[in-house]
């Protein structure tokens, strides 16, 4: 009887140890995909063919009469601006065509300005800005890949001015 009880206890212990092992090995979470990424070093904003704003390697390039900030009418929309990117040599490259890449942004004060895209343009590298109230804020333009950011600008100054 004693022997049987002891065997039972040992069996219980062995089962418990194995159960802990199984728990320790189980339910490994899946990993998100590891992929190659779009890595430009700058961008230009184009308004009807006019490259009016240039950002390259961490700095706004206002040379050649280009803007050093983005100006937006209070209560109104800017023209539709198209984004072209710049590679390491400063040459223009087209926006990524990977469906996982999309255009995103981060506005410091969203009560001053907002981004407007037509429903068909969402995710594309074209946008308008709408002034919500007169004032200043910044916007960071980004390329999102799935749920992380491949490329970002510095915060670009935005001024909303009364017409």
């Amino acid at each position, binding site marked *: 009887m004693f022997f049987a009880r002891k065997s039972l206890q040992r069996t219980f*212990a062995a089962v418990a140890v194995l159960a*802990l092992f199984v728990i*320790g090995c189980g339910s490994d979470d899946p990993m998100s995909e590891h992929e190659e990424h779009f890595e430009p070093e700058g961008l230009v904003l184009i308004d009807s063919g006019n490259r009016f704003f240039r950002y390259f390697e961490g700095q706004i390039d206002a040379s050649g009469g280009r803007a050093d900030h983005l100006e937006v009418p209070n209560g109104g929309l800017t023209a539709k601006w198209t984004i072209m990117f710049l590679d390491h040599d400063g040459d223009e490259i087209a926006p990524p065509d990977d469906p996982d890449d999309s255009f995103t942004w981060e506005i410091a004060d969203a009560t001053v300005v907002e981004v407007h895209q037509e429903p068909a343009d969402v995710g594309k590298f074209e946008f308008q800005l709408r002034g919500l109230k007169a004032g200043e804020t910044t916007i960071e333009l980004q390329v999102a890949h799935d749920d992380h950011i491949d490329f970002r600008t510095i915060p670009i100054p935005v001024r909303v001015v009364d017409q």
Partner: protein
Amino acid sequence: MKFTAPILFFVFCFFAIGASDETRLLEGYVFDRKTQRAIGNVDIKLEDSAVGTTTDERGRFVLHLPEGVHRLSFFRVGYGLASREVRVSGGKLPILYVEMIVQEILLDTIDVVGRDAETRFEELHEATGVLSGDELQKKYSLTLAETMKNEIGVAIRSMGPAPARPVIRGLSGDRVQINIDGIETRDLSATSADHAVTVEPFNAERLEIIRGPRTLLYTASAIGGVINVVKQKIPEDHPQRVFGSVGAYGETVNRGYLSAVGITVPVGPLALYAETTYRNTRDVQTPIGRLANTPIDTRTHLLGLSYPTDRGYIGASFDQFDTQYGIPGGFIGGHPNGVDLDIDRRVFDGKAAYYFDREVFSSVEMDLTRTFYHHFEYESSGNIGSEFLFHDYSGDLKLFMNTQGQTRNTVLALGFGHHNLKLGAFVFTPPTRELSASLGVYHEFTYRHIEFQASARYTYADFDPRPRTKSIADLDVDRIFHAWSAAISPLVNITDRITGGLNLSRSQRVPTIEELYNDGPHLAAYTFEVGNVELEAETSLGFEVFFHYLQPGVDFVLSGYWNEFDTYIAPRNTGEINFAQLLPIYAADGVAARFLGLEMHLGWRLNTRLNLELDGSYVRGENKDEQVPLPEMPPLKFVGSTTYQHPYLTVGGTAEFVAGQERVDIFEDSTDGYAVFGIYAQRDINTDHTRHSIIISVDNLLDTEYRNHLSRIRSVMPETGRSLKVHYKMFFF
């Protein structure tokens, strides 16, 4: 199928060690008769025998005794000798309670103080490298690094409060290994400043820093030292009754709190250990304002089960560490609103030991660990910036032997590891598999009154990145390392009161996966990290000389060290920026480097109630290739403390003096010096089966604005301001 072998091994050991039951386990507690406080480090000897043990900080001890009548003697410095007769026969032994009486005269007449340790090496280790009992409770803070920050030679690398990690003698990363119960804690805290250490120290019995030849029993990489957190999560002895602790902790500087329960329970022939903790803090307050995005939310659960017998034990534990915390932003390269991290780590440990009766072989011990680790880094928008995942399998087999008339003085250690690291989201480091194996030997011996510790270790490591990323596609990046390390430390009594010793070592550290293959942005570290597949093993020669002066009431340790590296591998700020993500580029490179340092510890017992302590440390790191200081070197630091022990209340104060750090790397800023002060009071209340310990303390009493030179965010915010802390723990037994 891959788990079949270890399972069969454990099942085999399980039945093998249950075969003998010739002795009985005696459990007891030792108390101070006047204060009824538990007494730790009491030497307990079975008279006319070499059998003995010491009490832990709860005054508890266990002894295996054969049937018969025995006399036990109890010795502790400052107390009169006590002895008890114990009759061991069939049936369950009652718990033995022993009271000891303070004998103050002894303190002034005996020549040897605190000879609780078995060897002079252990004595020195106890004097400078151990935090336990009341001292541990008093110094407890919300992270392991904060808890240990005022130990000799220890500094903190940080990036906000959560990811703090200890730095020892200026050495960081995996040059400092963190173990729990002798088994390495596998996480990514060594690889980056933003990664948290996955250890909750609240329920630790003891924290110890292991240096010298003994480190090679665990790793060849930890040139700085091994920090061992003793928890006994797999009980090695069978408890005679339920014991454990319930605790809570709170501090005002972050409106944080912690609650914890730890319990050991006898379940038939089994021993069960269970522990759970919950920690929550909000943003940290500094003297100049709130440090945004620094909350912490951590849950830990631990369950250990063992089958201890007189011939050994077999057991397993499951340990989960789940934390979410923030990294502040607002500095160069940082996101304005910071980054959030979410870490989930699950560990399965299996351990077994078998005690031999043979003269040569003392015991064989085996552990097998399986770790799953998953870590996300989120931008403030909720986007995943970085993702790290690994599965790690590791194991050790240690054979303890008795040679040259000494017990367990020779150890053969065989280890293996399989580490499979995957990276996701916006990290370009390739997924990499690492296979490793090691063979180590450790030996203690005495030659002409000189005690020696000697060790050697061979490490094999094979790195295989798959699939290869664009940047390394055309390179031969599979790497195999053969690393050899050895150390020897002689120790001699120069006079009755002065012990002197040396420590000579030659170490080779295998580079990490990150140091070899990193190539991309690391979101929460706010860096673009570039590895170097050409790196060779980091080779160093170490020389240390130390003296220990011990007389009644005075304990003084002085040590000086010199480490010379052929290839010191460090990620250094290149001064360049990655323009896609606007991050500073840190590149891993091996440079010739030299570390010179001094450390001292003075303990002075003015009388039976008043103690003074003073610790000091200084390290000077130099990049010999470029003739510039190494980055992130801790500045000169002194920590003074005083303790007044009244039978009903212990009060004390601490003062920390840190010099400014002007010796900085090319793209590193200097840091001003500072002095901060703290006070505390402790009250213990003992009942028959409980001990309540309450500690109230105030850190940074003067709300001083100061900055830690090893903090990545020191440019935007100082360290924490004044904080009231309350620490309560109830031990039941």
